[in-house]
C-alpha cells in the first residue's frame, strides 16, 4: 500500500503500509520534498515507529525528515504516559541538541567593518572542534550541580542574567533531572566538555535579519530588519551521547521482561512507568540540563566578544529551543485531553499564544521557533500555532535536514574553495576542522526555505523573519 497524498503538504502512511503498524503515519512534505523522504529509509522508519506500543495519534515526520537510527530525524511520536513506552532512540544520541537566538541593536552597516575582528574573537572565546576541552575545570560534585540546575547553574556562576532563563524552553532546567541516574562513564565523557561547541553541524553564526513576515511577532521577539542576530547550535556533548548509549543497552535487556519486541534494535523501549523508563527520563533530563548550561555559557562568551569589539550588554536572548527530547505534556487527542510523553527527535516544540509554558513576554504572540539553515543559506524564526497543538503535539521542523551524506559532501570540493566561494557571497567562515567544513557545505542540506514553506502553509507554525549569514564559527 502506497503513501496517500491528503493535500499539498500532507502524506498519510496507512497502517496497511507495513505489517505491525498500530497507528498511521503522517508526513509533512511538498511534492518537491517527498522524493527525498521516499529515497532513503525515512518512510520505513516512520512506519517502524508506528509499531511501538501505546502510541497516541500518528507517527509524524516533519518536512526536514531524513533517515536516522531507529527513529527518523525530524520525527515526532507521543505515547500515553500510563500505557505507552519511552525510547532512548526516540530522543537520539545528542540529548537536547538545540538552538538559541540572540538579538542585537547593531545594524549591518555597523557590524560589517568589524566582522573579521568579531569572528576572530568568537573563535578565541569559544572552544570548538573535536578533542577540545572546556575552559573550566569541574569536579564531579560541581558537574552534578550542572546536571541538576542546567542554565540556572550557569547564570548563578556569572554566565548570563536571570532574565535569560525566562527565554529558554523549560527556563533552562528540567526539574525531573537526577544526576545519580547518569553513569560515571557519561560524567567522565562530559566533565571536560562543558562550555564547548563540539563538531559536526554545531555552530555559532552571526546573521542579519533580511526579511520580516509578521511585524507584530518580530517586534515582540526584538527582531528588526537589517539588524544583527547571533545563533548558537549545540548539544549535550559526550555526556548526552553516553546516556543514550547506556540506556539503549538497559532498554534492550529489559524489553523481554515487558513482552516488547521491536523491528529495529535502535527502537529499544520500555514502559514509561517501569523503573527503567523512569531512570532514563531522569538521566535524559540531567543531560538536557548539561546542554542548557552549555549554550548559556557560550552565550556569555558571545556577549564578551561583542563587548570587546562593539559594545557591552548589547545582546538579548530571544529564545532557546530543544531539538532532541522526550517531554510529558497535555494534548487534545480528538475530543479527549491526554497526558502524553512527546518524543521529538530533530523537531521543535511550537506552542501557540496563551499557552502557559511560554514566556509572559510572548504570551499574546506565541513561542518563537528558531530554524537554522545550512552554512551559507538563510535561517528562519517562526511562531507556534494552535494548529500544531491539534495536529503535531505542538511540534514543527528543526532545520534544513541533510540531503547528502557527509562523505559525498566533501568529495568534490576543497575547504579552501568552499571558504573562497562563501567569502564571494559575503560570508566569513572560521572552522576548527577543514574536513568538517566541507561536510557542512550548503549543498549537503535540503533547501531550508522549501522546508519552512511546508510548515507555514500546513499551518503548524508561521513565518516571522528570515535571516542571512554573515559569519560562521564551525566546530
Amino acid at each position, binding site marked *: 500500500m502506497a503513501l496517500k497524498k491528503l493535500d499539498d503538504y500532507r502524506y498519510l502512511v496507512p497502517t496497511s503500509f507495513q505489517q505491525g503498524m498500530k497507528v498511521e503515519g503522517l508526513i509533512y512534505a511538498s511534492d518537491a520534498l517527498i522524493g527525498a523522504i521516499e529515497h532513503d529509509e525515512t518512510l520505513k522508519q516512520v512506519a517502524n515507529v508506528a509499531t511501538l506500543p501505546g502510541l497516541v495519534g500518528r507517527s509524524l515526520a516533519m518536512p526536514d525528515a531524513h533517515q536516522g537510527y531507529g527513529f527518523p530525524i525530524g520525527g515526532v511520536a507521543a505515547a500515553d504516559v500510563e500505557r505507552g513506552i519511552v525510547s532512548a532512540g526516540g530522543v537520539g544520541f545528542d540529548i537536547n541538541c538545540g538552538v538559541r537566538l540572540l538579538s542585537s541593536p547593531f545594524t549591518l552597516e555597523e557590524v560589517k567593518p568589524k566582522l573579521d575582528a568579531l569572528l576572530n574573537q568568537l573563535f578565541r572565546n569559544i572552544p570548538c572542534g573535536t578533542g577540545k576541552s572546556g575552559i573550566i575545570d569541574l569536579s564531579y560534585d560541581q558537574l552534578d550541580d550542572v546536571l541538576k540546575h542546567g542554565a540556572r547553574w550557569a547564570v548563578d556562576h556569572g554566565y548570563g542574567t536571570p532574565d535569560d532563563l525566562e527565554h529558554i524552553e523549560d527556563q533552562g532546567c528540567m526539574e525531573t533531572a537526577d544526576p545519580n541516574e547518569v553513569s560515571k562513564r557519561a560524567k*567522565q565523557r562530559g566533565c571536560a566538555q562543558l562550555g564547548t561547541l563540539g563538531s559536526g553541524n554545531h555552530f555559532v553564526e552571526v546573521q542579519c535579519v533580511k526579511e520580516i513576515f509578521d511585524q507584530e511577532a518580530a517586534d515582540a521577539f526584538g527582531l528588526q530588519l537589517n539588524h544583527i542576530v547571533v545563533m548558537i547550535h549545540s548539544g549535550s556533548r559526550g555526556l548526552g*551521547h553516553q546516556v543514550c548509549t547506556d540506556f539503549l543497552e538497559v532498554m534492550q535487556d529489559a524489553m523481554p521482561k515487558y513482552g516488547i519486541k521491536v523491528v529495529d534494535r535502535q527502537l529499544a523501549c520500555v514502559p514509561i512507568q517501569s523503573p527503567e523508563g523512569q531512570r532514563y527520563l531522569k538521566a535524559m533530563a540531567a543531560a538536557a540540563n548539561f546542554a542548557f548550561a552549555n549554550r548559556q555559557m557560550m552565550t556569555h562568551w558571545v556577549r564578551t566578544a561583542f563587548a570587546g569589539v562593539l559594545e557591552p550588554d548589547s545582546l538579548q536572548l530571544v529564545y532557546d529551543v530543544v531539538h532532541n527530547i522526550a517531554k510529558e505534556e497535555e494534548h487534545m487527542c480528538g475530543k479527549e485531553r491526554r497526558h502524553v510523553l512527546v518524543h521529538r527527535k530533530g523537531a521543535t516544540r511550537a506552542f501557540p499564544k496563551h499557552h502557559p509554558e511560554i514566556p509572559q513576554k510572548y504570551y499574546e504572540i506565541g513561542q518563537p521557533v528558531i530554524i537554522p539553515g545550512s552554512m551559507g543559506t538563510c535561517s528562519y524564526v517562526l511562531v507556534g500555532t494552535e494548529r500544531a497543538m491539534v495536529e503535531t503535539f505542538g511540534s514543527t521542523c528543526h532545520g534544513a535536514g541533510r540531503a547528502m551524506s557527509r562523505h559525498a559532501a566533501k568529495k568534490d570540493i576543497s575547504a579552501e574553495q568552499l571558504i573562497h566561494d562563501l567569502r564571494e557571497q559575503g560570508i566569513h567562515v572560521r572552522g576548527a576542522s577543514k574536513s568538517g567544513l566541507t561536510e557542512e557545505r550548503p549543498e549537503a542540506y535540503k533547501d531550508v526555505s522549501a522546508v519552512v514553506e511546508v510548515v507555514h502553509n500546513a499551518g503548524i507554525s508561521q513565518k516571522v523573519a528570515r535571516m542571512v549569514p554573515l559569519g560562521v564559527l564551525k566546530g
Partner: protein
Amino acid sequence: MKWLAEVLFLYDAEQFLFSDVNFEILNDTTLKASILGEQYDSSKHDLTMDIKAVTYHQLSIENRGNRWIARVFLDI
C-alpha cells in the same frame, strides 16, 4: 559493539587515540584485545569529527572465506 563503545569512551573521556589492535581472545562470546596508541595532542593529530556513538543500525556480521566482516554504523 560494547568493545567499540569502550574504545570511543577512552577517546572521549581520556583523550586516548589508538593506532593498533592485537586481538588476544575472539570467540562467540568474548573479545579481549590490547590497543596501542597515545594521548591526543592537537599539535600532532588533526581530528575532523566527534563520534557520538556506536549504533546497532543495519549491523551486519558475515563470514567471507576465512574472514569475518562486520559492518557497524557510527553516529557522527
